[in-house]
């Protein structure tokens, strides 16, 4: 990814050498209020980009260092901020680590609730993709459709967790509270409506010839490249890699629900779009099964609030305070 940019003094260069050097253009970094701040150093040959060096780190906040000094459970709200479309998944990641370290058992109902909420979140996240992707391609209507349904999901999540984006709704050993009354019915209503709405998206985009010509065969990522660079998620699955962590190393109750992992071979923008569309349908399948199978019972953490695990880190914080 590095670009060798030599800069000999102009007087020593012949015209041919100057022309063959290519032009270096700097793009960004954009202002921090934009979603992701990225700087690109591009080397051009005429109108073609021949080399690109991305420069990142403009929004680096040193979360790991902040987390070092806190008890494990105090770190959960930080993980909300890692990805504003996947707060629950990141909550879960840190809680699972802590649970594994401490050998904490999670009540079955809590596991089902986690999967239910995460799949709802996946739908909301994919809808942001769908809406903004459509807008970027000139299909502005798609944005309104996708965000209308996303609002339904966010309403559901808000009713359960109290927040629209930063949910902070997983605890070490469970979830903070049970689902609100009638929540299951509301989710079922949503699933019913949303399944029809996916058909509308298909009519708007999937069967749209302009949309197809702008995505098919564009931005092809061959399977070998995707593997060598360790691509994951829908990007990997659109390039023919059957890698889904929910299948490769199932966690919570993903081994108890039936769902398919869409894998396509062509590796272009079109394939990445189709994979996400299919994942929307598969998420609905998972949600339906989870609602049906969810057992009654406790869902709040069953482990002592100050387990030995937490005491270790508490001691460390106390030591750090005394030392400073």
């Amino acid at each position, binding site marked *: *990814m590095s670009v060798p940019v030599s800069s000999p003094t102009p007087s020593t260069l012949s015209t041919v050498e100057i022309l063959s050097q290519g032009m270096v253009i700097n793009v960004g970094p954009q202002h921090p209020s934009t979603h992701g701040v990225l700087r690109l150093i591009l080397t051009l040959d005429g109108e073609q980009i021949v080399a690109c060096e991305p420069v990142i780190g403009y929004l680096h906040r040193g979360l790991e260092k902040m987390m070092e000094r806190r008890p494990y459970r105090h770190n959960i709200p930080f993980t909300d901020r890692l990805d504003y479309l996947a707060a629950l998944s990141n909550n879960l990641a840190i809680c699972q680590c802590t649970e594994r370290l401490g050998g904490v058992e999670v009540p079955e109902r809590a596991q089902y609730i986690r999967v239910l909420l995460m799949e709802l979140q996946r739908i909301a996240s994919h809808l942001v993709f769908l809406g903004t992707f459509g807008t970027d391609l000139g299909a502005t209507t798609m944005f309104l459709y996708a965000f209308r349904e996303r609002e339904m999901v966010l309403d559901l999540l808000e009713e359960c967790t109290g927040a629209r984006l930063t949910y902070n709704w997983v605890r070490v050993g469970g979830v903070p509270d049970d689902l609100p009354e009638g929540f299951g019915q509301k989710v079922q209503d949503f699933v019913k409506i949303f399944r029809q709405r996916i058909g509308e998206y298909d009519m708007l985009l999937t069967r749209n010839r302009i949309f197809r010509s702008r995505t098919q065969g564009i931005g092809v990522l061959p399977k070998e490249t995707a593997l060598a660079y360790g691509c994951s998620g829908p990007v990997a699955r659109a390039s023919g890699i059957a890698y889904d962590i929910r299948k490769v190393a199932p966690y919570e109750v993903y081994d108890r629900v039936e769902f398919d992992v869409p894998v396509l071979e062509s590796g272009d923008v079109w394939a990445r779009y189709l994979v996400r569309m299919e994942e929307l349908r598969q998420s609905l399948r998972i949600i339906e099964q989870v609602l049906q199978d969810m057992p009654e019972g406790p869902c709040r953490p069953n482990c002592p609030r100050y387990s030995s695990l937490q005491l270790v880190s508490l001691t460390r914080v106390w030591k750090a305070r005394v030392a400073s």
Partner: protein
Amino acid sequence: MNQAVENLLQRFGEAITEWTQFSPNELRLTVAASSWQEIAQYLRDEPLWRMDYPADLTVWDTGNEFGVYLRLWSSVYNHNAIVLTSISREQPHIASLTAIYPGVDWHEREMYDMYGVIFEGHPNLKRILLPDDWEGFPFRKDYVAEPSGNPLHGPQPVN
């Protein structure tokens, strides 16, 4: 996986100090740092392994030494492997894997940025997240996180 493990142990002998098989498709190896690159190359190219997917590479500081952690996955056999090694804190050098797995390029840069581990043979080993003039390596356990040590430059907010 059994035959593959046997071949691996035979091929590298003492370079593999420890190995544990968690499940039929999950293996953890502790190896000598001097064979780091060679073992990675073997795991990728050997027909019985074909570990072609670099899932993660990271470093941790135990206080006495640095541990290096590499997680691989095989798209052919659906096997997972964790490869561990340790290097000294005084001479934190280890071979870069960028030639074998291009995907670990940024991981190695991040670990250099945060721990000061030198990945020998990396084509572009420089800071990736922190500013270029940052002093010290923040994730080392003996790092002093005083703001005066690394004042943030650039325009200050106006009230």
